[in-house]
C-alpha cells in the first residue's frame, strides 16, 4: 500500500477525566517511510499524542486515521511497535526470550522465533548477550534489547516515547546512530517523541514542534540533511544553526 499518507490527524483534542486539556487542534499528515520527531517541553502532551496513534486511548475530539483505519483497527491490520522510555523487559526472561515475546504472542513457531530474535539482537550489536537476563545488562544494552523487540515483528510503524531519555549522553548518541542505521535499512515510518532538539534533528526527516499544554503543532520543520548521516554531522555549523532555528520555534511559544 503506497498511499500518500500513513497517519492523518485532523483537529485532534484530548482532555483527561480530571479536566486537564493535554492536546488541542492538532493536525498533521505523515507519509510512509518518514521519520518524524515530536519535540516540545515536558508535559506538552506529546506522549499523549503517541498513545492516541497507538490506539491506547481514544481522542476526545477530532479525527485520527492510520492507513485509512482507526488506530485500534490499524493495530491489527499493520504492524505497530511501541518503544517506551524504560526498556520494560521481563526480568525473568533472557534477552533473546524478551525479544521473541511479540512473536510468541503472535503464535510464531519456536524455531522461527529463536532465529529471528537472535538475528534481531545481532542487528543491535548484542549477538553475544542472547542468553543474559536483563539485570546483567547495562541501561544502554537493555534499551537495545527493547529496540530489537520492537523491530523483531518487522513493523511498518514504530512509535518511540523518549526511548533514550534515561541514558547518558554518549550512550544516547550511539543508540541514535544505530536507530538511524536500522531505519535506513528498512524505512519503517517512525514517530519519535523527545525533548532533545539535537537528537530530533540528527534522527528525523521532519520535526513537529509542539507548544506547552494544551499542546498543539506550532511548527512543521523539514530537516534539510540527507538521510544517510554520520556522527560528524553533529559538529557541523549547519547542524548547530538548524538546532538553533528549531529552538527558536519553541521559545516563541505563547505563555
Amino acid at each position, binding site marked *: 500500500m503506497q498511499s500518500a499518507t500513513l497517519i492523518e490527524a485532523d483537529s485532534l483534542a484530548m482532555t483527561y477525566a480530571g479536566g486537564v486539556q493535554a492536546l488541542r487542534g492538532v493536525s498533521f499528515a505523515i507519509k510512509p517511510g518518514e521519520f518524524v520527531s515530536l519535540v516540545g517541553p515536558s508535559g506538552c502532551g506529546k506522549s499523549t499524542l503517541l498513545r492516541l496513534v*497507538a490506539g*491506547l486511548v481514544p481522542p476526545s475530539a477530532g479525527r485520527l486515521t492510520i492507513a485509512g483505519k482507526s488506530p485500534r483497527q490499524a*493495530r*491489527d491490520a499493520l504492524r*505497530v*511497535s*511501541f518503544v*517506551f522510555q*524504560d526498556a*520494560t523487559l*521481563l*526480568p*525473568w*526472561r*533472557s534477552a533473546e526470550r524478551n525479544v521473541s*515475546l*511479540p512473536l*510468541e*504472542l*503472535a503464535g510464531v513457531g519456536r524455531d522461527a522465533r529463536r532465529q529471528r530474535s537472535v538475528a534481531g539482537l545481532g542487528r543491535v550489536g548484542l549477538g553475544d548477550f542472547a542468553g*543474559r*537476563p*536483563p*539485570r*546483567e545488562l547495562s541501561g544502554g544494552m537493555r534499551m537495545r534489547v527493547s529496540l530489537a523487540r520492537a523491530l523483531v*515483528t518487522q513493523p511498518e510503524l514504530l512509535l518511540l516515547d523518549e526511548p533514550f531519555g534515561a541514558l547518558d549522553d554518549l550512550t544516547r548518541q550511539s543508540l541514535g546512530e544505530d536507530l538511524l542505521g536500522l531505519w535506513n535499512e528498512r524505512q519503517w515510518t517512525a514517530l519519535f517523541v523527545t525533548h532533545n532538539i539535537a537528537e530530533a534533528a540528527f534522527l528525523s526527516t521532519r520535526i513537529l514542534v509542539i507548544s506547552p499544554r494544551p499542546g498543539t503543532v506550532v511548527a512543521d520543520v523539514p530537516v534539510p540533511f540527507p538521510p544517510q548521516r554520520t556522527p560528524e554531522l553533529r559538529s557541523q555549523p549547519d547542524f548547530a544553526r538548524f538546532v538553533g532555528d528549531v529552538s527558536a520555534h519553541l521559545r516563541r511559544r505563547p505563555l
Partner: protein
Amino acid sequence: MKDVVRWLVRFALPPLALLALVLAAWHLAVVLFGIKRYLVPLPTAVLWAGWEHRATLFSAATLTGEAALAGFICSLLAGFTVACVFAQSRIVERSIYPYAIFLQTVPIVAIAPLIVLWFGYGFRSVVVVALVISIFPIITNATAGLTAIDPNLLELFTLAGASRWQMLIKLRLPGSVPNLVTGARISAGLSVVGAIVGEMFAGSYQDENGLGYLIFQASGQLSADLLFAAIFTSALLGMIIFGAVSLVGGMANRWWRGERLWIG
C-alpha cells in the same frame, strides 16, 4: 570444607551459644528459686521426656505436619485462584474483600469449633482450620502482585495483541512471583498454628494424636515435661515448614531475577 566450617562458626555458633546460655539460666533459675517441677521442669527433664516419648512426638509431628502442609497447599491454590479473580475484576474484588478481612479478623479459636461441627472430628477439619488461617496472606500478597504489574508492560502486551489468558500466564503470573513468595512464607508459618489449633478441637483420630491434641492432653495430665517437649516439637515443625517454603521461595525469586536456581 573450610568454607563450611567458617559458615558454621559465623551463622550456627552464635544462636547455639545463646541456646546454651538460656538453658543454663533456666536450669539455675528452677534450682535457685525452687520453682515447682510440675510448673517448670528442668531442661534435662524436658530432654528426657522428649527422648522417652520420641515415637509419640514424631508420629504427632508427622500428622500435624501433614495437616499443615495440606492446609498450606490448599490455601496456596485457593488463595491464588481468588487473587486471579480479584485481578481480573475490580468489582468482584471490592465486593468480596470486606469478607476476606472478616474471615481474617475472626479469631481462629472462635471458628474452629464451627469447622469441626461442619467437617466432623478428624483430619479434614484440621486441614480446613489450617486453610482458613493461612489463606489471607496469600490472597492479599498475590492480588498485590497480580495488579501491581508495570502499566507499560500491560500496554506492551495489549499492543502485541495478547489475549487475557496470555497476559495472565506470561505476564501477571510470573510477575507476581516475589509477592507470592512473601505471602507463602507468612502462610506456611500460620498453617502450622492452624493445624495445632484445629487438633485441639478436632481431637484424636485414626488412633493417632497430632501435636495439638498431645499438648491438650499433657496439660490436662499436668505433665509439664511432656508439654514442654511437645511445644518445642511444634516450634521445630513450624521452623522446618517455614524453612522448606523459604528455600523453594528463594529459588522462585532467583528465577524471577533471571539468576541460576542453585548457588555455585
